[in-house]
């Protein structure tokens, strides 16, 4: 594809995206979070508080000009920890989606293309098994059986995430395979590999991409829930869910220890949701 066409396409996409002010807001929030996460050491007022640090003199002090979100029970600045905490949320989203999507999509392509054969049935039944209980239950079950670390939490979520992509791509692939251009490719003797990845897959791209952007918010939501329950990153890691859980013992007197991390969780998820909606609206016309 030549560059002029691409540029025009992106201009058109940007126009569609920017029509909704909420999408722009989402983009702004997400970009800020990414920047803060990467350069947390720079943005955090007290970067050394992020991990192992105690200062009991200052512990549990309410929000003030020195500590915008207050300090927690070990005297650490909550805002700084929140900024570092963004990293874990983002890492979880990126890892889960990059690991779960390829196999999910691949299986969906194969099952969709080989529709109504035993391959189709086998793949979709396996996917059905993973989707037969609410996602939270499976994630909790897998997570609780392994040692509670961030890595294992990501594993648990990945394990129950891939079938959604299989189902999505299955639906798309089975309808695309009946299109004329696919039949044309078959007739001219194209290999199955080419048909799957050269013909069908490119047409599913925007659906997959839309779902991925919308999923980021969900993965972060489930991830923070897992760490809240104690099954994800462990203290003293400044994971947002863990922070909410640690601080819950101090409600109502020292409400800020729980509430600020909780608020930022909502902000992150909201940002990604708005961005995801914008991407969906942008790609919808295509």
């Amino acid at each position, binding site marked *: 594809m030549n560059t002029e066409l691409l540029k025009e396409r992106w201009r058109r996409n940007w126009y569609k995206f920017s029509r909704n002010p909420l999408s722009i807001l989402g983009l702004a929030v997400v970009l800020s979070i990414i920047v803060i996460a990467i350069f947390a050491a720079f943005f955090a007022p007290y970067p050394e508080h992020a991990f192992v640090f105690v200062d009991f003199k200052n512990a549990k002090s309410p929000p003030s000009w020195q500590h915008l979100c207050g300090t927690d029970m070990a005297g650490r600045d909550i805002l700084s920890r929140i900024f570092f905490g963004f990293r874990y949320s983002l890492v979880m989203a990126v890892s889960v989606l990059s690991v779960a999507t390829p196999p999910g999509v691949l299986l969906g392509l194969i099952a969709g293309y080989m529709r109504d054969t035993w391959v189709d049935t086998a793949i979709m*039944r396996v996917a059905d098994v993973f989707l037969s209980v609410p996602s939270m239950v499976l994630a909790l079950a897998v997570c609780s059986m392994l040692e509670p670390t961030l890595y294992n939490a990501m594993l648990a979520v990945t394990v129950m995430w891939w079938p959604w992509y299989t189902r999505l791509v299955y639906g798309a692939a089975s309808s695309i395979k009946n299109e004329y251009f696919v039949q044309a490719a078959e007739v001219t003797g194209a290999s199955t590999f080419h048909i799957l990845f050269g013909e069908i897959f490119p047409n599913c791209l925007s659906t997959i991409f839309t779902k991925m952007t919308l999923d980021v918010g969900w993965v972060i939501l489930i991830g923070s829930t897992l760490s809240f329950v104690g099954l994800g990153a462990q203290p003293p890691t400044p994971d947002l869910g863990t922070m909410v859980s640690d601080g819950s013992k101090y409600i109502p007197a020292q409400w800020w220890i729980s509430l600020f991390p909780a608020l930022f969780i909502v902000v992150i998820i909201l940002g990604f949701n708005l961005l995801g909606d914008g991407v969906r609206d942008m790609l919808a016309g295509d």
Partner: protein
Amino acid sequence: MNIKKYVAYRLVSSFFVLFGLSLLIFSLSRLVPGDPARLALGPMAPQWAVDKLRAQLHLDEPVYIQYIYWVTNVFRGDLGQSLVTRRGVFNDILEFFPATFELVIFSVILSTSLAIILGVTSGKYANSLWDNIVRVISYIGIAIPSFVWAIMSVFIFGYVLRWFPTLGRLSSGVVMPPKVTGLLLIDSLIAGKLDVFRDAFYHMILPGTSLVISRLAQEARITRASVVENLHKDYIMAARSFGIPEKTITLRYLLKPSLIPTVAVMGMDIAGSMGGSFIVETIFNWPGLGRYGMSAMLSNDINAIVGVVMLIGVFFAFMNILVDLITAYLDPRIMMKLRGS
């Protein structure tokens, strides 16, 4: 194919899926590192006691043998013994299920009614001030995990405003009504104890809203989108052209097609809330299946874990079929597709 065949097909299909689920969860539970027997008895227990328990649970035999033991037991109604409560898992489930069922049903009915009202009014008056308010609130609502709402609502409504209680199903000192269904709201009404009803109702608000806050927002959005889409359909204009009153148009001609996606989502929300109950019940100390399941998972109570997950799987499968049937009943176009398959 007709309805009976379709239902039979789905039931058989679900059976296979549940079979697969049992394999999955069973193997996961048995392949976990660590010794469940040792965990159950504690570090102080003598080795022979641990070995005895291991033999009882067939833990030293190959996994597939263990599975066969388990399956045969299931068909006898025996889901094994909980390593934590020392009672039959089946009995535990029976005891804790009503509390969760009541919480889930209560919350979903509440959330769906609210979602429909919000969705229809904001859709019909799209782009008005009310619509914009509802949209902003639902955007935020979708982004709130249930534990966040739980913590925030406990703080705001439980402590600051002191409107609602924050723990359990009933306040301490309140006597439970005689057990008829296990659902406190119904049992207290049957027994005529309105104060107990009120107490139970208040106790359900915070955990209930935490359970469904995000789903409520999602349902409202879906309803609104559906209403907006149908509002400009030709059949609405046609109805108006024949002089059918606006009220009838809104409450019948617009509502029925618009609610079909909402009903489908509602059914799945009931099923999905079973998952959310793990978190919410633990936070609010609600004596239900979720709290039981959560503690089973955290203490590696393998029999209980398998039992609870299987039960939820069965419930989920049942709900799926029910939702599909109801949407087909409501929308003849879906029915035709179903018949065609």
